[in-house]
């Protein structure tokens, strides 16, 4: 169960959701009974995050960050508006203010009518979201672990930097359509970089359960890998057989939604779902879904509009699948919301694929590497940006933990190398998929993450193309 409270007040902050089920739903429901808008939707999203950040032989940034946003959306006639506050005591005022703004918008020409709110619907049960191992991973345990990781790296003649995080997220939604939804979840994650000389290695993972992260073992592996890499050599320009570790593969497939797997893109006639629905993109072993019900990553039962989350296969058995939607885009395209409503900071609301999972395969990472006579192992990519959504082209660089593969084994460490390549092309040329999923967060997306296995791509270019462009 969520929220057992014992000990002093600072311990209570560490152990429980910021608002809690009864208080959150109680206050939000009471607020619904306020001014009479046609529709009202209210969500409370909070995160109690404890972060132990370490570098340069110290835990330099041990932090507790508690965030809370209560956002009200009111619809009055053809007008709608949102008002948000950072504490429940302001929610009644927010309902009144949003209703007033919506009324002022009512009847204005030039815009289509606003969408409604989610009706009552049962979300998937939230068993499995709350893990006591994560609660037990307190600041003392994390700081000691950080110190041990830095000591380990120092023993190998190097350094280590990283972050260990235990957090509690909660989301409560009530709507005038009758929906009542609440869930709270633990979250545990880590990332660390080990550096020995100019060589480095990286490890990271994220999930609900701290006991599954295997931080110590993966830290040891990272230190060992950095120590054996020697002086990094440049990535040779050219087309290589490449094994991407799960983190690098996750970086690449994280771009998929940009290629037209959202309802607004379909509505505008842009991208793969609009233009090539059902077309073969990749081998049939490749399935990539947005699946907030999966046992990996950060499962969560419903979105910020209160709609139960549905599994949406973006690529199903190698073919172009479907698109994620929220209430607004579903209304515009004539379907039902898939439960992917999202409001990012300084951005307009838009459906977001927040829990991407690539289906694992049968191979270990070592077996994928063993299948490459001469090529590259790429553990981590960095600063990847979309270049061409139509072609699926992304620019980025490799970063830590990258090696030459020679005769099926890792040999020399690699310096950072730049690539400009099509993710779609890479998926099409994938001939092996690893069995272990690794999860990483998606920045700026609430509860966002990507889980991916290692993949082996037959032909991926690093460096400039001989002709200068694709």
């Amino acid at each position, binding site marked *: 169960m969520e929220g057992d409270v014992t000990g002093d007040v600072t311990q209570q902050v560490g152990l429980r959701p910021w608002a809690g089920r009864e208080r959150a739903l109680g206050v939000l429901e009471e607020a619904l009974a306020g001014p009479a808008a046609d529709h009202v939707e209210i969500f409370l999203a909070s995160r109690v995050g404890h972060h*132990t950040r370490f570098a*340069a032989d*110290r835990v330099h*940034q041990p932090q507790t960050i508690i965030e809370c946003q209560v956002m009200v959306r009111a619809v009055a006639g053809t007008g709608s508006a949102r008002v948000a506050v950072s504490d429940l005591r302001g929610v009644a005022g927010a309902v009144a203010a949003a209703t007033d703004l919506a009324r002022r918008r009512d009847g204005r020409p030039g815009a289509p009518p606003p969408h409604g709110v989610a009706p009552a619907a049962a979300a998937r049960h939230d068993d499995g979201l709350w893990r006591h191992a994560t609660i037990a991973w307190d600041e003392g345990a994390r700081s000691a672990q950080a110190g041990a990781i*830095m000591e380990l790296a120092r023993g190998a003649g190097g350094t280590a930097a990283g972050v260990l995080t235990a957090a509690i997220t909660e989301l409560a939604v009530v709507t005038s359509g009758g929906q009542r939804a609440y869930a709270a979840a633990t979250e545990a994650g880590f990332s660390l970089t080990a550096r020995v000389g100019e060589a480095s290695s990286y490890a990271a993972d994220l999930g609900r359960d701290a006991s599954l992260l295997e931080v110590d073992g993966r830290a040891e592996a990272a230190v060992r890998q950095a120590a054996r890499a020697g002086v990094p050599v440049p990535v040779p320009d050219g087309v290589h057989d490449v094994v991407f570790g799960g983190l690098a593969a996750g970086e690449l497939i994280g771009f998929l939604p940009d290629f037209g797997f959202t309802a607004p893109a379909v509505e505008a006639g842009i991208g793969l779902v609009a233009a090539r629905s059902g077309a073969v993109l990749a081998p049939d072993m490749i399935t990539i879904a947005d699946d907030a019900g999966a046992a990996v990553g950060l499962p969560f039962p419903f979105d910020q509009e209160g709609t139960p989350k549905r599994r949406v296969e973006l690529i199903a058995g190698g073919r172009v699948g479907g698109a994620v939607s929220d209430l607004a885009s579903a209304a515009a395209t004539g379907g039902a919301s898939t439960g992917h409503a999202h409001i990012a900071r300084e951005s307009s609301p838009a459906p977001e694929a927040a829990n991407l999972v690539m289906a694992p395969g049968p191979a270990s990472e070592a077996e994928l590497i063993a299948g490459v006579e001469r090529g590259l192992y790429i553990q981590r990519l960095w600063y990847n*940006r979309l*270049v061409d*959504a139509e072609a699926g082209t992304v620019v980025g660089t490799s970063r830590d933990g990258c090696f030459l593969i020679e005769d099926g084994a890792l040999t020399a460490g690699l310096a950072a190398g730049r690539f400009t390549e099509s993710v779609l092309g890479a998926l099409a040329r994938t001939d092996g998929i690893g069995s272990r999923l690794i999860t990483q967060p998606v920045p700026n997306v609430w509860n966002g993450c990507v889980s991916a296995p290692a993949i082996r791509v037959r032909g991926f270019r690093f460096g400039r193309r001989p002709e200068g462009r694709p």
Partner: protein
Amino acid sequence: MSDELAAAHRWGELAGGLAGAGPLLDAAVGRAAEGGASYADVRLSETQELRLYAVSGRAPDERVEGSLGLGVRVLVDGVWGFASLPLREAGDAALAADLALRNARAAAAGSRERVVLPPRAAQSGRYQTEALIDPFAVPAADRERVVQDALAAALEPAGVLRAQAGVNAKRSHRYFASTEGSRQEQHFVESGGMAAALAGGEQLVQRRSYPNSFHGNTAAAGWEYVTGLRLPQEAARVGAEAVQLLTAPVAEPGTASVVIGPAQLALQIHESTGHALELDRILGDEANFAGRSFIGPDAAGTLRYGSAAVNVVADATVPGTRGSFMFDDEGTLTRRTMLITEGLVTNFLSSRDSAARIGTASTAAARSDGWGFLPLCFATNVFLEPGAGSLDELLDRMGDGYYIDDNKSWSIDSQRLNFQFGTEVAWEVRRGKRARLVRDFSYGGVTPQFWGSMEATAGPAEFRTFGMPCGKGEPKEWGFLSHGAAPSLFRNVAIGVA
């Protein structure tokens, strides 16, 4: 600084100045000191953001987001601790202090290194943004008209599939107190806007945006800034350009002379200059996520970064930008700091912690994302000092080459050395005159060589400033900052690299 708060700042729960906020501030730093902190500071802030953004075919998104909270930072036996939370009641100040102390004590077990902050005299004062027209007092119908007119203008050309237009405003009260006796209050107002058009053809989509491709542009100013943007007129232009780009040719890859416009150069400065000079990054604090820097802590006065034409300044005292303030987020009084002088590195973007570790003084670059996050080294208002002459004179000086602007894609390695950028728009320049548009322009380089190839920059009349958000830290926080430049001429640039 005027004695009274201007009308645009008289809103919210924290409008009462230090007299009102003082008890909460005192409670936080007092509790921290009682709990054993050798140093503590608290940031208490209230923010409200207003957005009206419209996407074609959708009901506009109008929203007002408020936030009120505090963050307490403590130093216990040379180890930091931090905690932040939304403010519910007066007792939250002590709760945040207790949590910060608890974090610091726990962190000591994992810390071999300790920091000693040089003592500092109290620095107190008040600052407020000058806003001629309070953006929150502008009638909703006026906001609506600007957005709908811009949206309609961007959609007008045949071939535009989707358009977006919007205006935004933000206001905040920020209070700071420390155990050194500093008591500060700063009151900010920002206003901004944008328009963008997406045109589509066969297998091709092109985007044009104004006034900047990344979140539009936002300034420390009132509604007068939005009016000055002339969004409907500029939306019509970018709509037409997006369609023109669908049939534009691609530049031949190779090397070329390039004049880079202010919007793209602002991002180039951000990625390859600002980030590279963050002292926390240089000292390894960001090695796991944001990365390191090719610049070392001993670079000041010794490292040649660019040509003699390159002068880069951090100056938060310049008003009107998203990086304008009086005190940074750990209470350091800002000042003008030369970062690059005639091509040589001369200083860093530093905080008290990072500066203490190399035996220098902070350059007031510790910035945080509101009350909720730790201050980190972020750019402030970092800009390339203008040179002389007009854009036309610069194009004439270039002769043949390209004039490019407005970022489309950006990537730089974790040492801030090897970069590749794409721009939304580029024009061929022949004998000093702009000729046809070319699409999908890209260029790349290595930071010191690239800045070493800068031959000239245009004069103050061509100088533009852009406010932008930046992500850094774990958990990732946003720094809101500003960069500026006039169009500048670079030689022998690798182009067509994407």
